[in-house]
């Protein structure tokens, strides 16, 4: 009986999903997409059209995405908050080779991440990808050297300032051009396919990259840093 019910439910769901099949066929883009494709380079001077859409035409959504990420990191920090009196358990220090290697690799990976989000308007990639790469460098350092501490005060300050600046850039568009996060007239658009081009797009993507990088880094630090749950602490006792 249960199985028959499940099968009927699956069939109903499949029937609803059948409506999605025509969406997979290549068709002419709609009016709005056609405008982005034909006018996007003219309006924003960004070589990477995807970035123009994400940061300019859909900039408000990106602000929302960054806010969602901030909320989830804040929630994780609240749930996994550091308890006073519990020292970080250092089971076994990593080997010298691992620690030195991680420290050597840290700077190149961070620079690569910065390259990705600074060149977001020219080449594939952007704030989210670059920020994730920066966070993976921090992760390498945290996992290799267990005694390492992130400068929390500075990172929270940087994250707040970056979020504030993002909203300020949006408000500048509202004041100058009449719509939030507008790219027209706020900054000179420059020449196509140059680093300093695209108006506010590279600035916003750099801000997004910094914000994503600091948020994911503090999330990883919180997760690595918190002590075990209480029952595990009682049963296993001693730290080395």
């Amino acid at each position, binding site marked *: 009986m249960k199985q028959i019910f499940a099968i009927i439910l699956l069939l109903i769901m499949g029937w609803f999903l059948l409506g999605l099949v025509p969406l997979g066929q290549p068709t002419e883009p709609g009016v709005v997409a056609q405008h982005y494709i034909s006018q996007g380079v003219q309006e924003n001077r960004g070589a990477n059209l995807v970035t123009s859409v994400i940061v300019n035409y859909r900039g408000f959504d990106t602000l929302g995405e960054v806010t969602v990420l901030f909320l989830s990191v804040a929630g994780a920090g609240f749930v996994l908050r550091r308890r006073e009196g519990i020292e970080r358990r250092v089971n076994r220090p990593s080997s010298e080779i691992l620690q030195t290697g991680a420290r050597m690799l840290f700077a190149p990976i961070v620079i690569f991440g910065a390259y990705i989000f600074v060149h977001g308007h020219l080449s*594939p990639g952007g704030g989210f990808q670059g920020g994730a*790469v920066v966070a993976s460098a921090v*992760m390498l350092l945290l996992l290799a050297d267990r005694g390492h501490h992130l400068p929390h005060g500075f990172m929270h300050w940087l994250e707040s300032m970056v979020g504030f600046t993002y909203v300020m850039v949006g408000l500048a568009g509202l004041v100058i051009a009449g719509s939030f996060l507008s790219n027209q007239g706020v900054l000179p658009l420059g020449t196509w396919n140059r680093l300093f081009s695209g108006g506010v797009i590279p600035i916003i993507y750099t801000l997004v990259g910094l914000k994503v990088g600091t948020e994911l880094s503090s999330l990883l630090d919180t997760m690595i840093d918190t002590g075990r*749950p209480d029952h595990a602490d009682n049963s296993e006792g001693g730290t080395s």
Partner: protein
Amino acid sequence: MIILDLLICLVLVASAVVAMNVRNLVSAAVLVGVVSLLVSYLFLRMGAPDVAMTEAAIGAGLSTVIFLIAIRRTEEEEQG
């Protein structure tokens, strides 16, 4: 090239199914990372390098590590 794509799709589906059924949670987390990596290759093949980069960096890299840390904080084996 199409044969390679089909092969990758096959491995992808197989990893996803095994990730759901395997008992060891560490293996499951690593298999989910493998799924993300293969999906990012498919995104690249379909001409979406931006999405592929996001999927590779966040799906295959960071979230796998976050899963592994969370598993280490709790228990290695699935209960019951």
